[in-house]
């Protein structure tokens, strides 16, 4: 088996003691609560993926507490493999909890007699996946550079900054509604160009983040 895959399994074994029924109940209860507040089943997907983000930081937190970086070296895992494996682990968590979110979204829609559209749910999950991976692209280099404890405050800043930016941009673009209409029309008529562009930008950000993390982690001393 490839070392990166083995490393991902190691990450899951690292967080295994913290994947508990209690946490699952908390996640489900919180998702239902948010759904009750918004009456939108899509929010369940976002909530579950938000919880996923917590699990993305767990290997850093648990690892730092237990000095696990040394273990990686003793096991002969190259630093580059640690970084690649951690990004893939994060991606698997995002996709996994996104899919759980879709299932829960179907469940609550069924329970409360709301309409359910799988394609729409998948689009929401895709958008959420982009947002959460972008947040993680900001967080992971910080964790690799400074460790979890030193960077946790800055690493969680995007959760405050992004919603604030959305509100500010919403108001800003709301005021420019008339001037922006031709651009919006162009976007609506050329969805594939926009999707392609967004995906390219997304991939570039991921690559930059991975390269930064490799650079930072190569320099770390334990």
């Amino acid at each position, binding site marked *: *088996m490839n070392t990166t895959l083995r490393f991902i399994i190691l990450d899951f*074994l690292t967080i295994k*003691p913290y994947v508990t029924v209690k946490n699952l109940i908390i996640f489900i209860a919180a998702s239902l609560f948010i759904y009750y507040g918004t009456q939108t089943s899509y929010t369940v997907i976002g909530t579950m993926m938000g919880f996923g983000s917590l699990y993305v930081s767990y290997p850093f937190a*648990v690892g730092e*507490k*237990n000095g696990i970086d040394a273990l990686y*070296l003793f096991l*002969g*895992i190259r630093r580059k493999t640690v970084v690649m494996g951690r990004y893939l682990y994060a991606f698997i968590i995002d996709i996994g909890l996104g899919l759980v979110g879709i299932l829960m979204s179907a469940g609550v829609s069924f329970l409360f007699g709301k309409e359910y559209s799988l394609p729409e749910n998948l689009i929401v999950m895709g958008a959420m996946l982009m947002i959460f991976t972008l947040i993680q692209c900001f967080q992971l280099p910080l964790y690799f550079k400074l460790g979890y404890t030193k960077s946790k405050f800055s690493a969680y800043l995007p959760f405050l900054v992004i919603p604030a930016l959305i509100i500010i941009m919403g108001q800003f673009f709301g005021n420019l509604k008339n001037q922006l209409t031709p651009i919006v029309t162009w976007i609506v008529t050329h969805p594939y160009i926009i999707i392609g562009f967004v995906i390219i930008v997304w991939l570039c950000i991921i690559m930059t983040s991975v390269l930064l993390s490799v650079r930072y982690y190569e320099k770390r*001393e334990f």
Partner: protein
Amino acid sequence: MKNAIEINELTKHYTDFTLNSISFNVQAGYITGFIGPNGSGKTTTLKAILGMIHSEGGSIKVLGDDNTLITNSEIGIVMDSSFFVEDWTAEDVGKVMQLFYLNWDSKQFSDYLMRFNIGATKKIRDLSRGMKVKVMLATALSHDAKLLLLDEPTSGLDPVAREEICELLSEFVGDESHSVFFSTHITSDLERIADYIVFILNGRILYQGTKDELLESYRLVRGGLNEIDQILQEHAIGLRRFPTGFEAMIPVTLLDSLSSDLLIESVDLDQIIVFMNKEERR
């Protein structure tokens, strides 16, 4: 292979400490003790060997290879604190090791756990320090390692646990292809089992060679204050004066030139460290 480890002019600077271009070899097939007081550079050297810190100069060869990682499966490691996730059980540790060590022997690991009386389902956090060291040792001995690197494995352990660990290490080097590099400040353990000694003080290697040669190189001298002559003034190592007399360590080559009234005794490794350290501070 003659040397299990070859360190050549290894250098590392910190704000308050420098590993000063140290060079030494660890002979294959033997137990080599790495001694020195706390803060002398033992752990820094071991970390550099293991790639945990980046050296600023010099070279490190482990089992003939420049890259420690390539030979990782041939190195067993025991550090002074556990590097396993505290919420793992000993069983989980086995699962993780199996993922990465091609030569992992699950049965041997279970046998060691039984020998050490460690329950496979017991969490690492619930184990005593001695037990944690034993789990690390069981791990190090269950993947056909050729070299064991141990950083202060016996510190804080009771005499029974220390004896057990020393016995295991002696068993391990029974096979001539196996080597042990053992850092400690509890030198009584080394006096029993070590063949070679590397002595580090303030980031410099003061001695490397056989343990017996080191012990035979110095003597402890005691006498009255009026017996401190010119030779002692100049050559005594770590001279200590008390109201009732003095004590010092001297090179054995100077014995003949000392007064026959002085009390001469053999030294142990602890005393060598203490006197050398005192001399260094003068």
